[in-house]
Structures are given as structure tokens and as C-alpha cells.
């Protein structure tokens, strides 16, 4: 692949071994995917944060890397969720030994100049790339949001790939960075009105069917941003979808529509019964959940507001976690939403979620979720049962 003279210098070690290694990773990725050159990026989202997922291997690598003062990001870079709430881990029952290692990981990332936001929704807290900009993001639900809703351009990076890109400010130009990879492969016609958890169910069923293809959705009613957040997360977890278009809605739909008119592409239809079946299939238990875990991807402020409004005057029988970023929590505190949720017996949990935290060690058995992504991962990643439904149906009060 072609490297500019400056990139050659980075690759050949002129700027030290850390930049050299990062550049080598980017060049290797470029070679694997037949990239012809590098492109400058304007933003990064780095995954590989939870001690539960990366373990001692990841911790050792990051501490090692961060010990080099040259290992610093040069574009705005935000961090994926960790395995605990970094501030309130003790109250939530997280173990000290686990937390100690988790905090070391976060510290290493901070040393590398990464914003320790610890959220899978960087686009809700200020990491908002512009349409058409090249970025390197590595959280699959954020990748699909950035490509589809913001119209930015990123591949589904792995943690080390995104970190290398953040340090070098570059990524190999291939895949979803190119126009031709953003053309829809099939039309998904949703023939019925969709509401709430339906979007996750649709994403789950379509993702399973299409793998890494680019779907073009036609919805009967207009989805809201929170719906698209759920839809994308599910598409990216049951499949490997990195980009979708929604007719009359997403920023590149016109480009996509023009291509559809030119080519005769496959179409799949989704009916009410498909959604109902998938919603049922996503639950692995018919027991009442002992923990309801919302916020996968992390809750937006208006989602927290909806939950709080529903809980006014209620007393919860099951435990409730609303997972979000510290940014949303700060606003929820000010607006009195946190107080309402806590009065009902729930908690706002920052920095982590039900998938990447060790909830299996906290004594819970059945987890209630309104996220198809969480329903997809909890049985395998935590070994626990899930009940999938809209949050209002999950909550049991006295």
C-alpha cells in the first residue's frame, strides 16, 4: 500500500517504537483488506476496556503501552464501557480485586490521552463526527450509529486497531470508508408499525439473516433516534452489520435510493408475526427477572426521563439498573430524575452495563432487558437467563 513520506517515517521508526508498531498494525490491516492508502481520521472510539473481556492479557498490554510517553492519541478519542461503575462500584457490590484491575486499565487509557468517558454511546456525549468524515470506531453499536445516523465513515475496528488509529491519527482506506461499500445490498420492508423493543427484535432478526450486508429499511412509521440506537445495536450483534439506511430519514438514504433504483436488489418483508415470534424467542426464561437492566446501548437522557416518569409513586419489587454515561447521570441528577428512580428502588449505573460487567458474580439469575443486543449476549457472556420485553412490562411494583 502507498504511504506518504511522513507515514513512511512513522512506519520506519523515526518517531519511536510505539508509533512504529501502531503504524505496522494499520499497514497490516490495510494489506489484509487491500487498502491502497491511509486516510486521516478525526475521531476514535476505543473498545477493549472491561477487565471481564480483556483480562490480564489486555491489562498487561495497555500498561506496557502507556508507559511510553509517546503513546498519546492525536484525535479526540473516547472510551468504551468498563466492567464496573468507576465511582459507585462498592455500593453496587462489585469486588475490590476486579475493580482494582479495572481502574488500572482505565488509568492506562487516560495516560494515553483518551477521554475516560466509558460509554458505548460516544455520539451522545460530544464525540460526534461530521457527515463524510473518516473515523476509527471500535464499538459495534457505535460503529453502526456513526455510519448510519451520522453519515461518518468507519469500519468495525477491533480495540487495538482503533487505538493504533487514534495514536497515529490515520486508518487504512477500505471498506465503509469508500462509497461503493455503502451501497445497500437488500431492502427490508417492515409492513407493520413498530414500537419500543420491536426495533431491537427487527435488528436481531435481520442481522442474523444478512450477516455483514447493508440493509435499506422501509418503515411504516417513523423511528426516533433511540429506536435507531436499539435497531443498530441489534443488527451489529446478531450480524456484523456496520451500516444501514432508512428511507426518508438517514443522511445517505438518497444516495442509497438512487442505487436501488438502478439495481434490482433482493427484498425481505417483515410482518407483525415475525416481530412477535422474535420477541418471544429472545427470552430464555418465563420467570420474573430479579434484575432489570436497561441502557444497552447506554440510555439517553430522554430515555432516563421516560423511565423516571413511569416510576413516579411506584415501589419496585425487582432490582433496577439504568446503565448510562456519567454525563447523562449528571444531567439526570440535576433534573431530579435520579432521585425519582432511587426512591422507587432503582439505580442509575454509570460506565458499565449488563454485558461487560460481572453481573453473574452478584447473585442474579434472571435479567430483564429491553435490548435485543443484551438479550443476545447475556446468556453466553454471563451464563444467565434473560427476559426480553419493553421496560414497562418488566417492572414489577408492590
Amino acid at each position, binding site marked *: 500500500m502507498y504511504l506518504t513520506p511522513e507515514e513512511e517515517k512513522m512506519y520506519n521508526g523515526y518517531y519511536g517504537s510505539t508509533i512504529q*508498531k501502531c503504524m*505496522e*498494525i494499520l499497514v*497490516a*490491516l490495510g*494489506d*489484509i483488506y487491500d487498502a491502497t492508502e491511509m486516510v486521516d481520521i478525526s475521531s476514535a472510539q476505543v473498545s*477493549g476496556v472491561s477487565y471481564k*473481556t*480483556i*483480562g*490480564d*492479557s*489486555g491489562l*498487561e*498490554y495497555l500498561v*506496557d503501552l502507556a508507559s511510553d510517553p509517546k503513546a498519546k492519541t492525536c484525535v479526540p478519542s473516547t472510551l468504551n464501557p468498563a466492567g464496573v461503575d468507576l465511582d459507585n462500584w462498592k455500593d453496587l457490590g462489585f469486588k475490590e480485586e476486579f475493580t482494582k484491575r479495572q481502574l488500572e486499565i482505565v488509568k492506562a487509557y487516560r495516560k494515553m490521552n483518551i477521554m475516560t468517558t466509558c460509554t458505548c454511546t460516544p455520539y451522545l456525549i460530544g464525540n460526534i463526527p461530521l457527515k463524510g468524515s473518516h473515523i476509527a470506531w471500535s464499538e459495534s453499536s457505535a460503529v453502526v450509529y456513526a455510519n448510519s445516523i451520522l453519515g461518518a465513515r468507519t469500519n468495525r475496528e*477491533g*480495540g*487495538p*486497531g482503533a487505538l493504533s488509529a487514534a495514536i497515529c491519527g490515520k486508518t487504512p482506506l477500505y471498506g465503509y470508508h469508500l462509497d461503493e461499500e455503502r451501497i445497500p445490498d437488500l431492502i427490508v420492508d417492515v409492513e407493520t408499525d413498530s414500537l419500543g423493543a420491536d426495533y431491537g427484535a427487527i435488528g436481531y432478526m435481520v442481522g442474523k439473516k444478512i450477516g455483514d450486508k447493508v440493509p435499506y429499511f422501509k418503515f411504516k412509521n417513523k423511528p426516533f433516534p433511540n429506536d435507531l440506537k436499539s435497531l443498530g445495536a441489534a443488527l451489529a450483534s446478531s450480524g456484523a452489520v456496520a451500516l444501514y439506511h432508512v428511507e426518508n430519514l438517514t443522511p445517505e438514504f438518497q444516495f442509497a435510493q438512487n442505487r436501488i433504483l438502478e439495481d434490482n436488489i433482493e427484498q425481505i418483508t417483515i410482518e407483525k408475526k415475525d416481530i412477535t415470534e422474535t420477541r418471544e424467542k429472545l427470552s430464555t426464561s418465563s420467570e420474573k427477572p430479579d434484575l432489570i437492566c436497561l441502557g444497552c446501548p447506554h440510555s439517553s437522557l430522554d430515555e432516563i426521563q421516560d423511565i423516571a416518569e413511569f416510576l413516579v409513586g411506584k415501589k419496585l419489587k425487582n432490582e433496577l439498573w439504568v446503565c448510562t454515561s456519567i454525563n447523562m447521570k449528571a444531567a439526570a441528577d440535576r433534573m431530579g430524575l435520579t432521585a425519582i428512580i432511587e426512591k422507587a428502588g432503582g439505580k442509575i449505573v454509570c460506565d458499565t452495563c449488563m454485558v461487560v460487567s460481572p453481573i453473574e458474580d452478584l447473585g442474579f439469575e434472571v435479567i430483564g432487558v429491553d435490548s435485543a443486543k443484551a438479550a443476545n449476549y447475556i446468556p453466553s457472556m454471563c451464563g444467565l437467563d434473560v427476559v426480553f420485553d419493553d421496560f414497562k412490562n418488566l417492572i414489577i411494583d408492590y
Partner: protein
Amino acid sequence: MKDSVKIIKCKKISRGQAQGEVILSKDSLSFLGGVNPKTGIVIDPGHELYGENITNKILIIPSGKGSTVGSYVIFQMAKNKTAPLAIISIKAEPIIATGAIMAGIPMVHKPDADIFNLLKNGDIVEVNADQATITLFN
């Protein structure tokens, strides 16, 4: 050059060179859950190399698979001195490629010959990633 020496062209993934004994499998390998980083022993019961030690060997596999955390596992193996000497992959994928670079293990891919037919376990080869060659001494 001796008649018994054969040089195969390939493509570089991670720089460096190493010479050693081949351990090969036609099964793709996941380092996370597939290899014990403390011992270098393959622990995936479904893998052809189950129970074998890949430490200080030239590992030849079709490709990688599984979790992206595998990259960190390769790094940890290098720190524990349980890593392979070099990796030859038929077609590299990001997990092992990234891990090999992070760990400083020479790695090449796309060999220009049917390497599974030319080599068997225990053969001696040299991998030179910088010159993009694999040298066979059998």
C-alpha cells in the same frame, strides 16, 4: 545454494525473522480460549493441535478466528515466553496479525506454494518477514 533448500515467497505481516521447528494445523485457531498463555498449550478440545505446545515453534495455520481479545493473549504469551517463534498464515485476519505485531512475533501470510503439502510437523523452516520469504530445509 543447496538443492535441498527451497524458498517460498510470501507477504509480510509482522517484521522480523526466526528459524525453528514447524507445528501445523489445517484448523483455524482462536487464541482466546484456544491456547493457554501460561503454558503455550492448545486447550481447545475441538482443535487438531489439542494438547500440543506451540511455544518456540513456527506455527502454520490457515487463519485466526474467535474473539478480538486473542490479540492481547498473543502479546501475553510473548511476555510469558510461551509464544510461537513465528506465524505463517495462509490468509491473515486482524486478530492474529495485530497480536503478532503487538507481541513482536514475525508473521507472514499468502505463501506462494501449497505449504501444507510441502511441510510436516518437525520440519525446519526459516521465516524472514522483512524479505517476505519462507525457507525450507527438508
